[in-house]
């Protein structure tokens, strides 16, 4: 068992952060349902947002554990997803050393660590699926691939139970795209970074 797999078994604190409207609360909800209802683990999720109707900082925190969860908020984060630079800067101060850090490579130009996995969620959703709004689902696909804190199967079931009817195929594609982005990036040497081909389209 790899160190990362072992890390995924105890209390795992995940934080999904970005801007209001990027779908992070939905992503948190799907992550929590995947872990809690389909993988059979204990989960607690809290959300935080500002008074704005859209925009503004938004984050969801999901605690996944094999034991009953007392404190429902993150104290030392194991898994951090940031979809904006603002979120990456605001919510990176309590990461565990060795935490998984996953950022949108186009929207986060300065990730909190050089070890961060930089993937073009929004650009890929826009260019490959023609639906930038599924960037959150692409990110979930990458999270399952990279971390193993949730099973791919559980994630897919939870996602399909949540999304509006008629969007199942799109969402499945988005999950697969996220997993592929993660696999492709893992194939490259981490030090090279993941400068993407999509940036020139912006």
């Amino acid at each position, binding site marked *: 068992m790899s160190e990362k797999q072992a890390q995924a078994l105890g209390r795992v604190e995940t934080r999904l952060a970005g801007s209001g409207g990027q779908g992070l609360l939905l992503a948190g*909800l799907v992550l*929590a349902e995947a872990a*809690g*209802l389909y993988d059979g683990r204990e989960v607690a*999720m809290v959300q935080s*947002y500002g*008074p704005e109707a859209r925009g503004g900082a938004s984050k969801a925190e999901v605690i996944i554990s094999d034991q009953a969860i*007392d*404190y429902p*908020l993150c104290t030392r984060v194991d898994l951090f997803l940031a979809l904006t630079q603002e979120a990456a800067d605001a919510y990176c101060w309590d990461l565990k050393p060795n935490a998984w850090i996953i950022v949108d490579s186009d929207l986060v130009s300065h990730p909190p660590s050089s070890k961060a996995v930089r993937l073009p969620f929004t650009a890929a959703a826009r260019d490959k699926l023609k639906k930038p709004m599924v960037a959150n689902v692409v990110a979930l696909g990458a999270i399952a691939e990279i971390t193993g804190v949730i099973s791919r199967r559980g994630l897919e079931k939870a996602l399909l139970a949540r999304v509006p009817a008629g969007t199942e195929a799109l969402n499945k594609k988005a999950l697969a795209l996220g997993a592929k982005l993660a696999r492709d990036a893992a194939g490259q040497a981490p030090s090279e970074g993941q400068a993407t081909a999509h940036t020139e389209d912006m």
Partner: protein
Amino acid sequence: MAKPRAQLLQGNEAIALGALAAGCNFFAGYPITPASEITERMSREMPARGYPFIQMEDEIASIGCCIGGSLAGKKVMTATSGPGFSLMQENLGYACIAEVPLVVVNVMRGGPSTGLPTNVAQGDVQQARWGTHGDHPAIVLCPATVAQCYELTITAFNWAERFRTPVVLLSDEVVAHMREKVVLPEPHEIEVIDRRQPTVPPDWYVPYKTDGSLIPQLANLGEGYRYHVTGLVHDERGFPTRRADEVEPFYNRLFGKISRHFADLERVKAYQLDDAEMVIIAYGCTARAAAAAVRIGRERGLKVGMLQLMSIWPFPRRPVEEALTGKRLALVPELNMGQISREVKRVNDGRTQVLRHGKMDGSMITPDEILGRLREAK
């Protein structure tokens, strides 16, 4: 038969579902962060069952509407947050003196006034007790988990109906918006209590004349029994009185119908208190941090336990006294400047050092803060 299904439920949704399980068949409210999800859920669930859901023009009208619904025999609830709860205070007193069963959910956010709409706080603890003017009894329940949101909403309805009094469910932003995996009980596992009805014919009916229970058997308006409802102190027939020999028994009965059941109204949960030298007394979301502090503290060899208050008014004096007995130190963490620590100090016999840990920055108290405070005090 299908296996009971676990679901991921938000605290606010659990309150709505708990209300339905308790038999709520009338809801009037006005949405407000962080309580809106209760109103939202009820706006879908109530019409689907053929029950009235009314979005009123404000919170004064919402609670007024509920009082009317309750007098007509409905099991009623409204849900709000600080600013709305302030507006409801006058009618809360009316429901108390007119003995109208009513459940009011107040999801606490930062105050006073508009305060911090999306942030957590526990600043309404004393308001829930003393917000309406005049001395009066109050029953206030305080959940810390999604499962407790469901369970205590049912309790709130049962107690409102049993004692014919308003009951406040005091939640907070973290508990309200937190989602947890829960398996809700089957309907047959849930105890539901409905208000008693008069057994005498309408001609013999004396509305506020009570038997040994001290609780009047008020008829549902519209069913042929006539009586007068007023916010003035009233006699057994429901009409205003200033006669000392009627006023004093009235107040005695109003308090007595609840105070004689104090022991039944104490809801607490003890965590690892048996061998503890220090006790954390906490409620609402803060109890979650306290439970984590107990777990981490125990791992580090601290003999610390926790008493969670699920009912805060009437103040659960006896279990708190028991929890304080023999402890060196008690710490009361809360998201205000000491509203419950003051009560703990009041019931403390002086042998235990009681410290408060107040926080008012819009965020939750962390387990580390609690442990740090215990370490300082050691």
